[in-house]
């Protein structure tokens, strides 16, 4: 999570819209980290946990379900 969020915040700081997708287990950490990096309102889409143990087709389903939220977060920036 740490470096994914780091990269997204850096993208935003370079003027590119970005959003971080995290699992529920990392939500609190993502909030704290984004604030520490200077972007407390950095957009975030939260999906269920765990992720790493899911099959490819399950992950594709999760991605499809989250896509609209990701797009909406990007369009707002």
């Amino acid at each position, binding site marked *: *999570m740490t470096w994914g969020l780091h990269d997204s915040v850096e993208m935003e700081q370079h003027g590119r819209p970005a959003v971080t997708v995290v699992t529920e287990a990392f939500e*609190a950490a993502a909030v704290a980290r984004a604030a520490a990096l200077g972007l407390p309102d950095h957009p975030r889409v939260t999906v269920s946990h765990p992720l790493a143990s899911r099959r490819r087709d399950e992950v594709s389903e999760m991605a499809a379900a989250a896509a609209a939220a990701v797009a909406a977060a990007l369009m707002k920036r």
Partner: protein
Amino acid sequence: MMGAATTGRAARRTISGDFVEAVRYLEREGWTDGLPVIPPTEPLVAEMLSHTKRAPDEVLGHMEPLRGTVTVEKVAANAVMAGCLPEYFPVVLASVRAVLQPEFHVGSTACTTGGSAPVIIVNGPIARRLGISGGTACFGGNIKPNATIGRALRLVMRNLGGAKPDGMEKSTQAWPGKIVGCCFAENEARSPWEPLHVARGYAPETSTVTVVAVRGIYPVTEGTQTTGQGVVETVVAAMRYLGTPIFHQMRNRIPVVVALCPEHAQEIGRAGFGRRQLRELLYAEVRLPVRELIGRVYYGTRAWPDWIDESDPEAQVPIVATPDDFWLVVAGGDGRHSAWMPAWGVCRGATEVIEES
């Protein structure tokens, strides 16, 4: 009393009550690791600071993940809380400077689910002078400088970096090194080889800390073989271990600490191995075949160089990228128990000189 503010000069706070009430106050503020601490009163912090030439307000860096400002004074306050004697302070400062090096990646090591914690290896004459143990039970923490120096570094990481279990600290399990770290001296007197810091380019009379974050201490017992060759074979077999992600992380150039007990080291030395030969043998032998690594552990995020032919199930994957990434040290007392400690994730470790005032 001094608080651990996140920026600038450490805050002064006045609290009333006795010693235990002061300790409870620090616990409520979230500045302890769950064990009692010594309240960092101004006189105690000043005494700690008298063991460095650096100014109290000097900024050493910013501690990830939450980027607290690390000043010399704040490090001193945490060293007092950890129970350090003032003369330990140069070792604590060097350890903090080491984890602030970019190649240490302290933010990742502090937050990872992998639960890594810092190992501090002390080399040079200061170890003997301060009584930092590299002998019997040196990893065990029940030796004052070993326990308190390691704990001071962990309190600095926790209080200034902000990785605490209710927020950025995400260790699935962690290990007790998260409390006291793991600080020990190399047992230079009983080593058949030049010490670690000399191998890393420092003079023997220079004192250093070499710090690396590890997931834990993996033991190697060999009490039957009578030759160094036999001991090496057991060490190699123990390190061909699937349940650590390091075989998938070779391109990150992270090291493996191989901590040989004096008896094992001397047997290996008598068998004709120098430091270089032993590292090269480990590099050639501590490998797992591609077929065992496919689809397991951290395969999905593997960082392998191009020369590994993934289409060949028998292709051999080394545990580290080069022989130099084995950090050989001699540590421990009598007996035939060694250990190895793979660095975590992206932590390449760092060495810093201990500045003696």
